[in-house]
């Protein structure tokens, strides 16, 4: 019998289905529960929370979740890898440790804490030593926005996760570790894969990419044959069954809804894909053109043949900075002539904004029900005449708050002083929103030292 390791995905992002991780650890045998909580926007939100209260700055949902499943995890020997630590992994670990003691698990649990990704306090030192942290998309130096930076985190790979597991951690709580590293780490630990076994690391990286968005590879948000995806209400989240040779199956627990097929898994493989021959992570460079997929059973797809190359000498850094402000206002216009009324309202609104002398970086108008998602592709053959209703959606963006604030007061007046048959404003005045923008950069690997602490509860 070939030894396999079963890694279950429990969260595809912070805000994903709360029931998923519970179902993953109770619905059948698994060895690891992997939970990805961090999107780019999440890090800056957490940084703000931590600034207000040094005990915060992590995915708070993780603690009540642990309250629900920690006894099951302990009983079944299931380990957890998660980047729920956000910008404050030690505080997250302390909250989980306190919970574990309260649940009577003192002496039965070891927590690994991975940090070292946070570069916010080192930015000036790095810039002074000649690290430009240039924007990967625009080539601009970080100096352009240095005074507005809110968070800066390097993406760490699987190595510190492997280190924590090797030192006996049952729960590994990290900061900005890559989504894929949370899945690759357990495989490297379980199979003793070398850190230069590029094909194996690429295989584990592809496994991580496949399950990092949760149910998006088991029938969720799946276009192909979508009407016949069974029982989405009860959708099963993905499980990787990994083998030491780098081949693995993606499946889900029996009795759950959703579907695992080659076509559905392929949709997830191409999601957020760049150059498929160079999927770059801190651990390796994976070649997605080498993946061979086979349907080997119902709801079971086998991955084999995956090749990889050596990792680069750089780490990606995600920097968040204050960009400006935006607001979006909406109104709904009803038949007859719904689209014409909405267009007229947009003209009136834009005229008033111009007359007020308000300056915006951008004003974007969409007519929901006509062109909001497919633009002019949707109207190329003409707009259907008798539309029952159209939503006018206008967004504005500016570096300063004042014009955006004034814009939010120009929507409601249109109800009484604009075109007729308008409704759908119960939500009240739109709220100006601060824009936190992203500055992707690279840094030499040697500048970032991952830090792993292992604490017995």
């Amino acid at each position: 019998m070939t030894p396999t390791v079963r890694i279950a995905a429990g969260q595809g992002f912070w805000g994903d289905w709360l029931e998923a991780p519970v179902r993953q650890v109770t619905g059948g045998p698994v060895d690891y529960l992997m939970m990805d909580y961090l999107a780019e926007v999440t890090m800056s939100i957490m940084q703000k929370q931590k600034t207000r209260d040094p005990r915060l700055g992590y995915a708070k949902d993780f603690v009540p979740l642990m309250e629900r499943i920690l006894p099951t995890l302990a009983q079944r020997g299931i380990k957890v890898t998660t980047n729920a630590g956000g910008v404050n992994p030690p505080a997250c670990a302390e909250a989980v440790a306190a919970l574990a003691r309260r649940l009577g698990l003192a002496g039965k649990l070891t927590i690994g804490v991975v940090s070292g990704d946070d570069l916010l306090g080192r930015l000036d030192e790095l810039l002074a030593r000649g690290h430009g942290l240039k924007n990967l998309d625009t080539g601009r130096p970080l100096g352009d926005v240095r005074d507005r930076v809110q968070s800066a985190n390097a993406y760490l790979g699987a190595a510190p996760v492997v280190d924590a597991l090797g030192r006996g951690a049952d729960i590994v709580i990290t900061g900005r570790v890559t989504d894929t590293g949370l899945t690759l780490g357990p495989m490297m630990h379980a199979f003793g894969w070398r850190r230069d076994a590029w094909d194996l690391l690429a295989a584990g990286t592809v496994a991580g990419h496949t399950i990092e968005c949760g149910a998006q590879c088991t029938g969720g948000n799946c276009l192909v044959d979508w009407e016949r995806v069974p029982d989405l209400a009860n959708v099963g989240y993905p499980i990787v069954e990994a083998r030491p040779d780098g081949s693995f199956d993606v499946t889900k627990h029996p009795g759950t809804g959703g579907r695992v097929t080659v076509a559905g898994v392929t949709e997830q493989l191409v999601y957020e894909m760049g150059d498929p021959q160079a999927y770059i992570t801190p651990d390796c460079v994976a070649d997605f053109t080498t993946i061979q997929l086979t349907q080997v059973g119902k709801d079971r797809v086998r991955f084999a043949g995956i090749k990889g190359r050596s990792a680069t000498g750089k780490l990606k850094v995600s920097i968040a900075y204050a960009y400006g402000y935006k607001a979006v206002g909406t109104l709904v216009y009803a038949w007859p002539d719904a689209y014409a009324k909405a267009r007229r309202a947009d003209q009136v609104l834009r005229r008033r904004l111009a007359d007020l002398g308000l300056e915006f970086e951008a004003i974007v108008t969409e007519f929901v029900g006509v062109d909001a998602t497919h633009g002019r592709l949707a109207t190329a053959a003409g707009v259907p005449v008798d539309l029952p209703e159209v939503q006018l959606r206008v967004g504005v963006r500016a570096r300063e708050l004042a014009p955006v604030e004034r814009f939010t007061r120009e929507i409601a007046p249109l109800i009484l002083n604009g075109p007729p048959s308008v409704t759908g404003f119960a939500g009240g005045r739109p709220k100006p929103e601060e824009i936190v923008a992203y500055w992707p950069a690279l840094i030499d690997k040697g500048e970032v030292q991952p830090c792993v602490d292992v604490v017995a509860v």
Partner: protein
Amino acid sequence: MKKVRLLELAHARSGDKGDTANVGLIARKAAFYPHLVKQVTAARVARHFKAMITGPVERFELPNLRALNFLLHGALDGGGTISLKTDAQGKVFSTALLRMMVEAPR
């Protein structure tokens, strides 16, 4: 020459990286893949999206997955948190591509 919507030959999923949307286009049958390679060129996709994007289009081939990956640069009004668009993260550029009319395979 008979024309069909790309939707009949392929399915797709899209996502974002900054101001770039990616669309992964997947042949519904293996026999359709060479047809897609010929018909759905980067130039053709750039023309299709010309009113929706400001930058160039790149294409990558994944014959093993009978898929093509397109990068549509300048597609998302600045992308992510900056964008004012409903589809700020490019989630439905996939189906926008599937509107394209192409020659029917033999």
